[in-house]
Every structure is written in C-alpha cells, then in structure tokens.
C-alpha cells in the first residue's frame, strides 16, 4: 500500500503534479481554497488505493507540498 499526503497551504495550484501522476489520480480540488486562495491539488480518498508511491507528483512539485509513503 502506498499513499501521498498534500500540505494544502503550501500548494500554489500550479497543476504540475496532475500531469506527472502515472495513475492519473492527482487532481485539483476545485471545492477547496487554501490559505493563499489557491485550489490545492489532492488525491481523492477513493483513489488513494491506486497510488503506487512512485513520488512523481512530489518530484515535480516546486513547493515540497507532497509527502509520499510506501
């Protein structure tokens, strides 16, 4: 089992992580606004099972907003 953790308030909504995820489960949470007024990226709870912990999203994140477990 693998998983990712998003530090919502570090995210600037740049969307780069959404292009890197090989499983296509990283997406922008349009219902949420973080403290900077951005829609942060996230992985929906129901999609977390598909995460393989490859850390592609974290690698391309410019703000160290993503932690990965495996």
């Amino acid at each position, binding site marked *: 089992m693998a*998983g990712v953790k998003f530090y919502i308030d570090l995210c600037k909504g740049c969307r*780069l992580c959404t*292009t890197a995820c090989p499983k296509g489960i990283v997406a922008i949470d349009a219902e949420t606004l973080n403290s900077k007024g951005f829609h942060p990226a996230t992985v929906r709870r129901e999609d977390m099972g598909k995460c393989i912990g490859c850390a592609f999203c974290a*690698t*391309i994140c*410019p703000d160290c907003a993503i932690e*990965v477990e495996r």
Partner: protein
Amino acid sequence: MKTVFKKPHALTDTPFHYCPGCTHGIIHRLVAEALDELGLEGDAIGVAPVGCAYNNYEYFNCDVQQAAHGRAPAVATGIKRVHPGKIVFTYQGDGDLAAIGTAEIVHAAARGERITTVFVNNAIYGMTSGQMAPTTLLGQVTSTSPTGRKPELHGYPINICEMLATLDAPVYIERVASNSVKNINSAKRAIKKAFEIQRAGLGYTIVEVLSTCPTNWGMSPIESMKWLEENMIKRYPLGVFRDRTAEAKASAAAGAGVGAGNGAGAEAGAAGGASAAAVAGNGAGAEAARAGQEARNG
C-alpha cells in the same frame, strides 16, 4: 509504510516565495537533497545571487552569503580559500551569471576554484519582471525585446556550458533540465555528482539547469514545461560537456602537490587554495621583512 519522499533536512520550513510552477523550488530541493544524501549540510556554505533566488538563505539550512549581482563566484572564491575543507556552492540565475557576472564565472572556472555552481537558466530576468537575458532565445518576446529577440539588435544567446568547456581547469560541466520527472531526476544526479567532485577536492564543477518562468513567459506552468522541452533544449542541448573526474582523481592521487591536479593538462595551475593552515604568530613576519628586502634588492 515508510515515508519515501519528504522535504529534505537541508531546506528550512519557510515556504518558497516563488511564483506558482516556478522550477526554482524544485532546484532548491535537489540541492538540499544532494547535501542531505552526502551528509554535507553542516559543511556547506552557499552563495545567493541577485535575482528571484536572492534570498535563498531563507530556504537553505546551511550557512549562506548573499552576493552582489553577478559576483557570487568571486564571493565563493573568497569563502573557499578561507575554508578549503568546506563545500562552497553558488546558486545563480542567467542574468546574474551570463550577463553581469560573465567575467566572474569565467575566471572562477579558469582558476579551477574548488566550488560548485548551480546555474538556473530560464532565458529571462524574472525578479525585475521579464527582461531579455543573454540566454533569451531568438524570437523570444520579453519586456526589453518586445517584438522578439533579433540578432541584429540583441545579438545571440550565450551557451555557458559550451563556453566554459573551452577552459582547461573545470572538472565537470553538465546541462540538465527541470521540466519533467525524468529530467529532474537526472538533474539531481548531476548536482550530487558535482558536490562529490568538490568534496574530493578535484576542481571546479557547474551544473546548468534549464528552468521555466511561467509568469514572465506569460504561460501556465504546464505550458511552460512544454515550451522548455520544445524550444530551450533545442538551443541548449542537455548533456555532459566536461567530465575529467577520473583524470583529476589520478593526478590528485599521484600527489601532484597541493593545489595542483586541477583536471588534465601538465601545467595544471596551482590554483587550488593551499591548505591554509595559517601560520600563527609573528616570527614569520620578521624574517619575511628581511626577505622582503632581499627580494626587493634581488
């Protein structure tokens, strides 16, 4: 489950001020990861540029000196000569390094200073809002090339790695990019290798990292990554332009004297900092004065 990816220790907890999608944040992380993995954070002394990364001392946990625009390689030279055993690196943008600081980077490299340069090339001046840089591509629109860069008006882009590769002293010169997971991972390997070469005292190392500037390019972060791939890499091909690690190790191992063995070339300049065990006391001064007189008479 184990954490396999998190913010490296060598980065502080201060969130980056960079624009959304700016690759400075990625490159800062790569430098910090390299310091962590090599156990060098405690020995590292960084030199910050003038540009978007002017205050990278708020992000790196190691000691940092902020340098005047373009002068980071000279500041780093001063630091390294005082602390030859420490890991000294400059982190510079293309305005800082390829425009006002061209003399400093060329001569620090030519002297074979045992420092590492992380050169962030995004083909534009970011901090001052989008002016043309020496690395701006032909045809690229900026606030000071409003109808696109034209050779007859603005001259041609400068390929720093290729230029420095004409010098004897540099041991390792590589250009990488920060616009994809694959490229980011190879960028990290390059930065880590540069630090390893410095730790071994072998000579000058530089890694040029092609980067994006979504705000001043006027594109989204995702479009910027694509633009880099399709335009910058054509002008600035990725790859290793110099790797004399083996030769440098060999001549260092052959005990070619402190300061010698700066890469290939028989007459490798004795450019490295002598192990500056400062001679205490003033005995040295007195007979130096006499010697001074003889020298002058000589």
